[in-house]
């Protein structure tokens, strides 16, 4: 079946794609695979799977604009949080300050390189990707049809979200702060407040965003592959 349609590698590439179903309101639950139809919902309402109660869809009012506003706020807070000191310590006239990156760097210098990389990844890199991807996704959605790279970013946005642990780090910093307060005077830095605000702005950014809206307007991977193939063929004939 597969090879009979053509001998070139390009035509086999196109056959990898599944056949989409015609009825776009039909979905299956990611947590129990139950087939069901998504109802038309007003913003604020949510569709849940009748079998396992998974939240399938929650349409948002003015999703993209609100997400953009919150993403820009998150980006500013993120830059502040990573450039100014977060915590300071003062004991018998001596002061020491650290930033988030400084904490990871100290671990690295002490030989705990693996843990240092993990801290750097979860507290610095993953949040940067989470914010950067979202910014690119929302701006990319201004074009029509939405270009394919937006889909690539959206596909991987979930991973950056899983590993971005600003709120966990915040709790860790608060515990460390209380622990150290027994030995020395702790001076909370500006970055600590920026991080505290970032926790809420990031949560708001995620809940304002409706990925379905983007997916419905995106240029399909298959269409893109077909267009590329046609271009290659055209240039092949020309040369």
């Amino acid at each position, binding site marked *: 079946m*597969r090879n009979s349609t053509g001998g070139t590698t390009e035509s086999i590439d196109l056959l990898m794609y599944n056949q*989409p*179903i015609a009825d776009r309101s039909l979905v299956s639950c990611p947590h129990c695979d139950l*087939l069901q139809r998504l109802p038309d919902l007003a913003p604020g309402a949510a569709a849940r799977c009748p*079998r396992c109660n998974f939240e399938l869809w929650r349409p948002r009012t003015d999703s993209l604009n609100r997400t953009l506003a919150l993403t820009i706020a998150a980006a500013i807070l993120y830059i502040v949080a990573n450039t100014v000191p977060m915590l300071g310590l003062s004991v018998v006239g001596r002061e020491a300050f650290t930033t988030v990156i400084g904490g990871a760097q*100290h671990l690295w210098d002490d030989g705990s390189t693996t*843990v240092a990389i993990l801290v750097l990844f979860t507290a610095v890199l993953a949040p940067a990707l989470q914010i950067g991807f979202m910014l690119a996704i929302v701006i990319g959605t201004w074009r029509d049809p939405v270009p394919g790279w937006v889909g690539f970013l959206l596909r991987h946005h979930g991973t950056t979200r899983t590993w971005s642990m600003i709120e966990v780090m915040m*709790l860790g910093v608060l515990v460390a702060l209380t622990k150290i307060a027994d030995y020395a005077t702790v001076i909370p830095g500006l970055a600590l407040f920026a991080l505290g605000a970032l926790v809420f702005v990031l949560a708001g950014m995620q809940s304002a965003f409706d990925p379905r809206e983007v997916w419905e307007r995106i240029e399909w*991977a298959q269409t893109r592959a077909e267009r590329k193939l046609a271009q290659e063929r055209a240039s092949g004939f020309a040369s």
Partner: protein
Amino acid sequence: MNAPALTAMQQGLQNCEACGLLSRPAPGEEEGECPRCGQSLDFRKPASLQRTWAFLMAAAICYIPANVLPVLTTTTATGTESDTILQGVILLWSPSGWPLSLIVLFASIMIPSAKIIALAYLLITVHRRSNSNSEQRVRLYRIVEFIGRWSMVDVFVDTFTAALIQLQPLMSVEPGPGLFFFAAVVVFTMLAAESFDPRLIWDADEFDGG
């Protein structure tokens, strides 16, 4: 309500976990790519049970050194002292600090062990094709998925404690070897939860029904 519940797999349809589009693989094929977003598709996550078991066992093995080895070493003028996670919890316990002590106890000791037990329970019930308590089991899975990241708290506590308390020769704090294993437990349990396919919980229902 009278019609039996149908799953996408029973209809030969694959759900894209990235973009949510339902599509049908080419005749005779088990896998393909999503025509909308290009994600590779399967009926179920590939080798879900094997991968989850592997990550879970790695986590269980690392759990022992994570709790036995010191996570922090404190050097003062009078000598050196090493603390494990549990000793850190006890040290935090004070009339004013007990809520934080409880947070660390919960996040560092109870959550990782509960996660390992919960995932092992989910895996065993799927292997045994259990079709009871499916709703509770998928809820348990969601709790495991949601709560896992919070175990990282102790890694951050130790990182910033060590980074700040650098007052040589008075006092300095260095991370201990236990921290590496503890971080490994958190990462492995998160990867285990991600590898597990909750749809497997419900598959036994359909096999028994049909």
